[in-house]
């Protein structure tokens, strides 16, 4: 089925009348390719964390939506994203994550680049022993830099280079969370989780968007975070999600809590929010911890979820917090793991030829519908 044969008018109706996205949005490689062009490339997609490049001079190659990218922290500490290809013959430059001592050297003809992307030398380009040529203008042949932006420890890219600046494109979510300006700290290796799921990337976002499933899929939450303690958020075209009014920070055996972020208002004393940043990130805001949950679309039916937990104070990396850190990470891992069967189950369900996209609860599914509408309008644009 081609896009022209898909009727998306049902998707963009108000939630009470709408149907969900057609099956093909989950089962079709062609629609997946279209989403790259229409959803991901024109927007600001989340690709990773600043902690993926932990030290100055560190580089991490990654493939995102088929694009070979190179995440680099240069020698000044600035995080940049380049296309991971040499300007000479298009050779992949870096195959493994690790420190770059001085220059990025192409393994083919050894053109060398600075970590800020400048072309440093072009050996033998003018003949043996001559590293210059009048027609090889180094200032025009630096690494191809991808527009990137850092927010809350996450790295976002605009792959088509045409989007509004990140701050403009995402003004609404930046305004909502403007209190969160304090530094974030990665503490302990257990604070990073990677979860592979056999499901379309959108299903992870859709599942995170609504609180409706919590009593059934996460019964452990019922005792302290009941369904009625949650509320929905919808910002059409930008983000949707859920919040809770009863966040209660965990205590250690001796009654300690993780340190709070500075400068937060009273709302966050007992509040937590989980916006789905469109298109591909879920974010967990709490007064004393923050996490990013980036969904990497691998194919139409496979995704990888990358989670990084951040804390408010570097002291949390200490040995005296280790047990509590591990417990906290394990609690989140359990919750995220509990979601796998529904995400994968919905993927399998999308093979049901008579399924019509699904009927939303007007009361509970607003955030999911908001995301579907974003996808449908992006595809139609």
């Amino acid at each position, binding site marked *: 089925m081609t896009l022209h044969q898909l009727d998306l008018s049902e998707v963009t109706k108000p939630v009470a009348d709408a149907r969900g996205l057609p099956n093909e949005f989950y089962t079709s490689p062609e629609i997946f390719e279209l989403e790259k062009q229409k959803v991901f490339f024109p927007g600001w997609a989340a690709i990773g964390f600043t902690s993926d490049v932990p030290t100055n001079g560190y580089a991490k190659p990654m493939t995102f939506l088929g694009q070979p990218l190179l995440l680099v922290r240069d020698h000044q500490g600035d995080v940049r994203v380049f296309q991971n290809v040499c300007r000479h013959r298009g050779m992949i430059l870096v195959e493994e994550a690790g420190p770059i*001592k*001085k*220059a990025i*050297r192409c393994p083919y003809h*050894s053109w*060398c680049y600075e970590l800020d992307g400048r072309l*440093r*030398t072009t*050996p*033998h380009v*003018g003949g*043996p*022993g*001559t*590293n*210059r040529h009048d027609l090889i203008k*180094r200032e025009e042949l630096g690494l191809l830099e991808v527009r990137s932006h850092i927010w809350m420890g996450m790295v976002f890219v605009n792959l088509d280079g045409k989007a509004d600046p990140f701050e403009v494109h995402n003004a609404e979510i930046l305004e909502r969370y403007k209190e969160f300006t304090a530094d974030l700290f990665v503490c302990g290796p257990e604070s990073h989780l990677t979860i592979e799921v056999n499901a379309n990337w959108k299903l992870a976002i859709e599942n995170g968007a609504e609180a409706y499933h919590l009593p059934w899929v996460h019964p452990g939450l019922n005792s302290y975070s009941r369904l009625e303690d949650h509320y929905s958020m919808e910002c059409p075209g930008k983000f949707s999600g859920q919040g809770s009014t009863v966040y209660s920070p965990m205590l250690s055996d001796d009654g300690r809590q993780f340190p709070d972020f500075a400068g937060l208002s009273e709302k966050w004393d007992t509040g937590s929010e989980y916006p789905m940043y469109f298109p591909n990130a879920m974010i967990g805001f709490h007064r004393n911890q923050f996490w990013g949950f980036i969904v990497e679309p691998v194919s139409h039916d496979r995704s990888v979820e990358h989670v990084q937990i951040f804390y408010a104070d570097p002291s949390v990396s200490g040995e005296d917090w280790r047990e509590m850190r591990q417990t906290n990470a394990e609690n989140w891992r359990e919750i995220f793991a509990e979601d796998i069967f529904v995400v994968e189950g919905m993927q399998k369900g999308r093979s049901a030829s008579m399924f019509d996209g699904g009927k939303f609860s007007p009361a509970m599914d607003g955030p999911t519908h908001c995301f579907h509408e974003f996808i449908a309008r992006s595809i139609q644009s």
Partner: protein
Amino acid sequence: MTSPEALNAAILMAHDDEDTATLVNLYAQAADQAEESGDIDAACFFLTQAYVFALDSGHSMAPYLHQRLLSHGREE
């Protein structure tokens, strides 16, 4: 002075070992020998090899090698 044959063998061994620090030193030696014999093209070839591996490994000789190539009009 190391014979050209011995130097070549050492360079090949360093390539096999991916020992970039040694490659910098050996290619620089080869450049010196070529320059002493008056073969500037060969010297610059070896200097280039040494310079690239110096950049790759963060070797302290990189600025010196760059300067030598510049003096021969072979670098920017």
